[in-house]
C-alpha cells in the first residue's frame, strides 16, 4: 500500500509541476512547450487518479481482512524494510499481496465475484471472476491451528457467502 501511495503522490506532484510549467510557458508564449507540459500534466493527473482508486480499494481490502499473513521476520532485506512489506491479506473484497491487488465483490452481481474457496494445510485457493474471465489464486495462509482455520472459514462465509472447503486438517 505504501508503494501505491508513493506512486500516487509522485504522479500528483508531476501533474502539479506540469500545470505550473504549462501555465508559465504559455504566459511566455512558448505554446508548443506549454502544450507538451499540459499533456504531461493531464497524463500524470489520470495516473494519479488511477493510483487513488487503487489505494481506496487496497484500504477497503485491508480494513476487511479475513486472513492476514505477515512476512516471516528476517525475510525482508534491510534496505527494503522501509518500503512496502509483502503482507498478504485475504479479505471480503479481494486479496492484497504487497501492492498487488485482486478485487471481487466491489461491483455488485455483474462484477468480479468470489466463486470458490478451498483451504488446505498450507494454502488457501481462491477462484474469482466475472462472466468473461476466471482467476485461480493460491495464497500461503500461515495458519497452524485447526480452530483458526475453522474461524477463518466461518468469517469468509459470513462476509462473502462462500463456504470454504477444508482439506487435509
Amino acid at each position, binding site marked *: 500500500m505504501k508503494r501505491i501511495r508513493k506512486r500516487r503522490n509522485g504522479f500528483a506532484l508531476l501533474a502539479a509541476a506540469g500545470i505550473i510549467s504549462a501555465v508559465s510557458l504559455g504566459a511566455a508564449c512558448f505554446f508548443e512547450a506549454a502544450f507538451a507540459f499540459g499533456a504531461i500534466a493531464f497524463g500524470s493527473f489520470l495516473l494519479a487518479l488511477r493510483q487513488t482508486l487503487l489505494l*481506496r480499494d487496497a484500504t*477497503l481490502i485491508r*480494513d*476487511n481482512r479475513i486472513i492476514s499473513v505477515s512476512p516471516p521476520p528476517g525475510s525482508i532485506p534491510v534496505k527494503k524494510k522501509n518500503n512496502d512489506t509483502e503482507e498478504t491479506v485475504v479479505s471480503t473484497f479481494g486479496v492484497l499481496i504487497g501492492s498487488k491487488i485482486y478485487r471481487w465483490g466491489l461491483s455488485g452481481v455483474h462484477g468480479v465475484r468470489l466463486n470458490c474457496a478451498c483451504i488446505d494445510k498450507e494454502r488457501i485457493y481462491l477462484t474469482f471472476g466475472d462472466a468473461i474471465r476466471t482467476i485461480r489464486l493460491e495464497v500461503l495462509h500461515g495458519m497452524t491451528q485447526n480452530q483458526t482455520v475453522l474461524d477463518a472459514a466461518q468469517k469468509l462465509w459470513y462476509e*462473502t*457467502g462462500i463456504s470454504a472447503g477444508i482439506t487435509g486438517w
Partner: protein
Amino acid sequence: MSGGIGINGFKFLTARRLSVIGFSFLFAFILSFPFEGQVLYSLLDLREIKPSGYILAAIIAHFTGLFTCGMFVRSKAAAKKTVLGGMGICLAAALPFFFAPSFLWMGGLIVVGYVSGCAVAAWGLFLRAFTPKNERIKTCADVLIFSNLLMIAINVVSMNRSPLLGLFLSVLCLVVGMVFIGMMPAGPKNIPDDTEVSKARAGIKYPLLMLCLFVFVITINSGLMYQVINPAFEHLTGLTSWYWAVPYIAALAIIRNLPMKAKRSQILYVGMAMIMGAFISFIVLGRSASDYLIVDTLMLAACGIFDLFWWSILGEMLDYTDNPVKPFGIGLSANVLGVLFGGALGMAVTSNNIPGAEVAVIALTVVCVTLIILPPLNRQLVLLLKNHSYLSAYDNMSQSQKTDIIFQVKTLDPLTAREQEVLQLILSGKSNRDIAGALFISESTVKTHARNIFSKYDVSSRAELISTLLKNQTGK
C-alpha cells in the same frame, strides 16, 4: 381535535376552522401589503417613491422571518404568542403608512416583513395539530382561497378607490385575524405530545432540501412572470385589479375537491402544460382584454396548481419532525427566495430594452428549462416521503417480521450474512456512519455493502431499496 366540538359555545368554530380563518386574514394582509402587495405599490406610487428598494427589503425580511422562526418557536403556546404578537407588531408597524413618507416606512416594512414571516411559520404548528394528515391539502387550499379572495377585494379598493382605504382594509384583516387566532386553543404541552409524531429515525433534512429545491424551481417561474407578463397589461387596470387571482382561486377550488386518490403528479404535468401555454399565448396574442383573460387564466391557474401541490407536500412533511415550525418556515422561505430570484431574473430580462416578443421567448426558455427539472425532482421527493412512512412502519414491526421482509422480495443473488445485517440497519433508517459505528466497520465498507445490496435487489438508490422492500408491508 378537528371534530365537532365547538369553541366558546360556537359549534361551527372548531379549532381547525379558527386557525384557517385567522390565518387567512393574516395571509390576506401579507399578500395585499408587505409581500409585493398592491396596497404597497399603490401607496408608493401615490407618493411617487421608487418601489424596488422597499419591495426588496420587505421580501428579504419576510424570508428571514420564515427561515429563523423554527429556531425559537417549539410549543403551541409559543406559536400562538408568536402569531398574535406578530400580528400586533404588524399592526403597529403599518400605521406610519397612513402618514407622510419617513424613515418609519422602510423600518416599518422591514419589521412587518420579519414578524409576518415568523407568524406564518408558526402557523405550521397549528396546521399539524388541528388538521389530520390526509386533510391538510384541503386546509391549505382553504387558506389560499380565502386569503386570495380577501386580497382581491383589497386590491380593487386600493386600485380603484384609494390606496389608504386599501391599507385600512389590510390592517382591518390583521385585527379580525387576531380575534380568531386569540380564540384558538393552545395548551402548554410541547409539540411531540400533541400529535402522533413519526418515530422514523431517518432525518428530514434531505427531503426538506429536496422540497426547497422543488419549491424554489417552481416559484422562479411565478417571479419571472410577474416581471415579464404583468407590465404588458398595465393599461387594463380595471380588469387586472379583480381578475388577476380569479383563475388561481378557481384552480385551488378544483384541486381541493378532487378525490383523494387522484394522482398529484399528473396534475403537476397539467400545470406545466398550462404555464407553457401561457407564455406561448403571450407571444402569439395581442394585449387586449380578451388576450389578458387567456394568458392570465393559463398562468395563474398553473400557479394555483403548483402552489397547492407544494403546500400539501409541506403539510405532509410536518409529521416527520418534532418541530413543524422549522420545515414549514424553511419550505415557505424557499418560495420567497424563488419569487425573489425569478423577479430579479425578470427584471434583468426586461430592463435591457429588448423587444417584447424576444423578452417573452427568453422567459419561455427559462420556464421550459426549470420545468424540465420538476418531474425528476418530484419523483425523488415522493420517494423520500414514502420512505419516511415506510420506515416508521418498519420501526413498529416485531424482530421476526423485520427479518422476514428481506427474504420476501426476490434478489438476483442471495445476500450474505453481513449484507443482511447492513440491510436491517438501512431499513431502520440509519445512516452509513451510524451503520459503520454499530458494526465496527469503516464507512466505505458500508457503502460497498450497500452498493452490492442495491445490485442484488436491482435498484439504484437507498430510497428505491426502502420503497421496494417496504411498500407491501405498510399497506400503502
